[in-house]
């Protein structure tokens, strides 16, 4: 689990809001030693490939999205406050009093400014604040801010990762750096083993926006099957029953109309056979993950979904359990090693 934690801490330090993934360099460097070849495509996906020891092998694509939720500068007012809009995935609920980073000519730390409760009327105190009424304060006067920051620059949450008790980690962008860390850890496990399948791993761009990265990658790779690794909701006070999973429960295997029964069954079989803790997650309708895009790409790609329970999703203090990450990593390495899904 130390390996997983190291990867996770490095990954969560990166600033990769949707649409800005192409500027990234260090994730490629983490992936390169674990695969035969790595490249970055035009939309910002990082794609790594390990070829099978056998000719004519099936192609499997493992996808974990690399991007994180973000905001975008819309204007800088005469007092130097930065106005912003949602770039991807942000809800106004998680924003007030957050510590953020604005990526301009220089990276600037800022805070999401809010009025003190003393200055609000009783009526205003009851209502959530709208995003368009919030501003970011970076401390500088307007002319300096305008010099360093332009309309269209991205903004992300500033928190890094920290250890909590009991193998738990808190930080921003665990959605879905947890999934990326799992794939890197799995590749480490598989390193000494020959593969029965051609393995393509995709750290995809733009999931929090529209899933464009996964769609483009599936078109390029043309996989025979795919497994998406993403996060699901972790149980915490107030989560609705059946929509969240206790931290530490293991790998969460999705069951949904869009997902392939053959892939899902095989994932479950592997978990049972190798005594890997797991739960099933029934999803009606869209899964809200890249599986929706990949499964309907090309002539249809049989796709599975494995999730990691995560508390406080899309906030700066998401919480995950390394034991769950380990379970997903183990499940995937077994799944790939044993040749993927079986079709009868």
């Amino acid at each position, binding site marked *: 689990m130390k390996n997983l934690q190291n990867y996770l801490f490095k990954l969560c330090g990166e600033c990769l809001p*949707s*649409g*800005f993934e*192409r*500027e990234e360099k260090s994730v490629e460097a983490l992936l390169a030693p674990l695969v035969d070849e790595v490249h970055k*495509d*035009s*939309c910002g*996906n990082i794609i790594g490939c390990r070829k099978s020891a056998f000719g004519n092998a099936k192609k499997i694509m493992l996808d974990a999205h690399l991007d994180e939720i973000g905001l*975008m*500068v*819309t*204007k*800088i007012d005469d007092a130097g406050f930065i*106005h912003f*809009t*949602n*770039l*991807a995935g942000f809800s106004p609920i998680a924003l007030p009093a957050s510590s953020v980073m604005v990526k301009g000519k220089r990276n600037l730390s800022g805070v999401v400014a809010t009025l003190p409760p003393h200055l609000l009327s009783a009526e205003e105190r009851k209502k959530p604040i709208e995003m*368009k009424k919030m501003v970011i304060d970076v401390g500088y006067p307007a002319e300096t801010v305008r010099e360093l920051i*332009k*309309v*269209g620059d991205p903004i992300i949450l500033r928190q890094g990762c920290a250890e909590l008790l009991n193998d738990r980690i808190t930080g921003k962008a665990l959605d879905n750096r947890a999934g990326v860390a799992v794939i890197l850890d799995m590749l480490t496990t598989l390193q000494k083993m020959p593969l029965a399948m051609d393995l393509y791993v995709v750290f995809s761009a*733009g999931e929090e*926006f*529209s899933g*464009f*990265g996964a*769609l*483009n990658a599936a*078109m*390029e790779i043309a996989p025979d099957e795919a497994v998406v690794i993403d996060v699901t909701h972790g149980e915490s006070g107030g989560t609705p029953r059946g929509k969240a999973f206790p931290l530490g429960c293991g790998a969460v295997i999705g069951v949904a109309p869009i997902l392939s029964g053959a892939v899902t069954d095989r994932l479950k079989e592997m978990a049972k056979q190798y005594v890997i803790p797991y739960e099933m997650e029934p999803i009606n309708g869209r899964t809200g993950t890249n599986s929706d895009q990949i499964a309907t790409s090309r002539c249809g790609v049989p796709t599975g979904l494995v999730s990691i329970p995560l508390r406080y999703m899309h906030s700066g203090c998401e919480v995950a359990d390394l034991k769950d990450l380990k379970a997903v990593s183990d499940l995937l390495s077994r799944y790939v090693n044993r040749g993927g899904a079986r079709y009868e």
Partner: protein
Amino acid sequence: MINQLKELVSKKSVSGNERVVASYIKEQILPYADKVYEDALGNLIAVRRGEGPKVMVMAHMDEIGLVATFADDKGFIRVSAVGGVHPQKTAGRPVIFENGVMGVFVAGKEQKMSDCYIDIGAKDQRDALSRIEIGMTASFVTETFETGEKIVSGALDNRIGCFCLIEALKRLKNCSCEFYAVFTVQEEVGLRGAKVSGFEIAPEVALAVDVTLSGDHPEGADTSASLGKGCAIKMRDRSAICSREVVEDLENLAARKGIPIQRDVLSSGGTDIGSVQLLGKGVQVGGLSIPIRYCHSAIEMADRKDVEATIALLLAYLEK
């Protein structure tokens, strides 16, 4: 500028019914393209050969409007919206059906689309249905005029973009790319024309020339885009996040040529590149936007300096 724009706006083209404006544009561009053709959906495509990457530039020909769903007993025509029609912005406007029958668009008290109707002055249901057919589209009647530096007209979204693309074809001298100018259909109802045209052309870079909302008037959008400050380079809207390389290319070109530009971040709305970006292995996309006031009302306002800047930047990109 104003005369050509008047011609463009007078050819009504509610989404799905773009033939009239398409044939007008075709006439205009024929002498300036190596090949001009239409596809099955009605997209109008002009090709200019050149050495270099395939660049697709889109401007949508369609406009928002209404479609007749039924006539009630008293002869009032009930309607559905085609694209983003807001009754509060368009109530009380005269409208014209595709066969020339005119009427008034009336909104209910609550300004819900389901309460809206068109009054063509019919006696009863029979009379109404003898003059228009169910399924016919109606567009808002508008005037096109200049006031100072500003241009005022309905359907500036997006005839002004069509105008820029036509001008670019006319003025383009040394094309440094394989240039596909595409006048798309059905943008206002889900970026549909662009999707099939993009699939056929499979470009390396796709640009959209379209309007954007400005924030420079009372109750304007929460954006810094303003009339008169230049061509607005799209950063993101609801349909796409633009490629950094394309944004940088456009900004560097503008700086070199002294073309005024501003940046455009749109919290709502989308444009044709949204569907092209998702095609194949992915397409690098960017947008050249003309800021307008009162978007999707029957009367919109743009600044001619922004239009000129947009044409200049587009030409610089195609000739670089």
